[in-house]
């Protein structure tokens, strides 16, 4: 049996209620996605012990931290969690090193496998180590906060929109560090966000929440293509597929990526042959043709089968496409659906205009193909 985090929380206040029952894998990053007010933060605060649920059970890899039916609840400081808040919350009276040491000195026992210098190196904090918190930029301060939480030797890391208070440039500065955490540490991370781009880039699993309830939970690839989830429709709809590097064309600076539905060319170089990569393809960047176009500027044209069509209220329809074992989403006008006489089972060609690559080595933003 795989190790899991099992939780069930019921939390009632006059103006808000939460009722969540989840089983989360003990590996990789699990995104908790939802609009503000959906209960994401309350869920994290219950796990940390910062809020007391009306009723609830929590266990991590079999260790029970909370069980209200036995009136059992571990004190906050005895739950081995690393909490990264939206703001860095660094202690202003301590320098960066002392901030990092705060949790490190209080970790349960020194045999816990965290190496101070490894974490400092991972988040590139050596140049900042003697600074005071008010001498750090927002992005630097948040990096220190992440390292401080990791040095506490947590069994579970909780991140509550750690990038939300940062501007675009600062976010791009931190995201590669989060990628590194993911590949270099084997810590389970719960990552709360209302930004689908961040979630698609970072997360392996996804929990979708709305008004205190869980709408869907599972592997990110399958949750993203669930047509019944209203939050994931619209402009942000898309899918994530996994592939491996097949070859690199130095002349055009293009990498060929193999996945179950064929091969895709993506701009730039992403490591050696067989490097595992993930691609996010937005539904807005996918269009359909009945026959393979021979005179298109678009490089990536792959055969697909129409799996399901979801007609919305407005001008658009969302279409789920199967390519091998993977799924793509296409956002078309309802008129196009009618003109193409689309129906499930149809075999067509999808033109993919751009994709965002997530790689353990380098990352780029959405690139036109």
């Amino acid at each position, binding site marked *: 049996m795989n190790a899991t985090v099992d939780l069930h929380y019921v939390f009632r206040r006059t103006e808000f209620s939460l009722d969540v029952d989840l089983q989360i894998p003990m590996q990789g990053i699990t995104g908790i996605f939802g609009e503000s007010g959906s209960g994401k933060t309350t869920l994290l605060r219950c796990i940390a012990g910062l809020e007391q649920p009306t009723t609830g059970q929590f266990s991590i890899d079999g260790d029970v931290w909370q069980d209200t039916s036995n009136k059992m609840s571990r004190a906050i400081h005895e739950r081995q969690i690393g909490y990264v808040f939206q703001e860095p919350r660094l202690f202003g009276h301590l320098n960066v090193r002392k901030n990092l040491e705060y949790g490190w000195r*209080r970790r349960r026992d020194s045999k816990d496998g965290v190496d101070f210098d490894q974490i400092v190196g991972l988040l590139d904090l050596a140049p900042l180590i003697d600074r005071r918190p008010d001498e750090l930029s927002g992005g630097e301060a948040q990096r220190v906060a992440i390292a401080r939480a990791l040095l506490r030797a947590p069994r579970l890391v909780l991140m509550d929109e750690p990038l939300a208070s940062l501007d675009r440039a600062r976010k791009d500065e931190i995201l590669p560090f989060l990628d590194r955490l993911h590949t270099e540490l084997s810590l389970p991370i719960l990552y709360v966000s209302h930004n689908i781009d961040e979630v698609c880039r970072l997360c392996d699993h996804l929990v979708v929440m709305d008004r205190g309830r869980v709408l869907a939970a599972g592997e990110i690839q399958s949750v993203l293509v669930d047509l019944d989830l209203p939050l994931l429709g619209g402009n942000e709809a898309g899918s994530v597929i996994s592939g491996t590097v097949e070859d690199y064309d130095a002349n055009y600076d293009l990498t060929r990526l193999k996945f179950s539905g064929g091969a895709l060319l993506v701009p730039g170089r992403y490591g050696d042959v067989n490097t595992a990569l993930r691609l996010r393809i937005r539904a807005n960047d996918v269009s359909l043709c009945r026959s393979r176009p021979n005179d298109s500027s678009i490089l990536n044209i792959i055969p697909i089968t129409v799996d399901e069509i979801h007609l919305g209220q407005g001008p658009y329809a969302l279409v789920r496409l199967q390519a091998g074992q993977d799924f793509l989403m296409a956002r078309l006008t309802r008129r196009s659906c009618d003109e193409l006489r689309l129906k499930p089972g149809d075999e067509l060609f999808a033109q993919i205009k751009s994709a965002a690559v997530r790689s353990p080595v380098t990352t780029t933003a959405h690139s036109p193909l």
Partner: protein
Amino acid sequence: MDAIIFPGSGPLWLSLQLAAVTTLVLILIGTPLAWWLAQTKTRWKSAIEATVALPIVLPPTVMGFYLLILLGPYGAIGRWWVELTGNTLTFSFSGLVIASCLYSLPFAVQPLQNAFEALGRRDLEAAWTLGASRLDAFFTVAVPQSARGFLNAIVLAFAHTLGEFGVVLMVGGNIPGKTQVISIAIYDQVESMNYASAHRLSAILLAFAFTALLAMYVINHGWQRR
């Protein structure tokens, strides 16, 4: 005359001792009280805050009068003290410390309470999640971050105790070497038309009060700029 100014037994020395002991006691008692007031949601909060603030507006003689009754050998606290120690609280140094603590209470509690309220829960929550118990987080995060509040509380409580007159006179009387503090000594010297000595003592108090407050404001502004 020298005994008035030089340490050992004079009123200045007595005043400094009284202020030091009172400040120490007030920090020990005032800190948990201020912490509780900053956190509590009880509906009695306003009533308790008003009680703590009473000495600011109450005439010292009124407070001194009630304390004299309470601490006297037939008063609720005084009787108990006599049974316990064999001595009376009134007209003694211990009685002065108790009276001064009540008299200067708001000057210690209010700056601390303001500092604790400004601190908020954010950094404390961070400390708890980093493995610090409530007490640990209080001493390693709340106290150092409220250093300014502690400085203000210490300076104000000390200076205010040093300058008290009415309460001390009512509770302690005017016993040289025992309860005659500097402000009462000044009154005494003026009564006996000994203006030179009164001048000297007054100048010392004035200089001390100004220096203490100046130091407090300078340090506060320094902290603000950081």
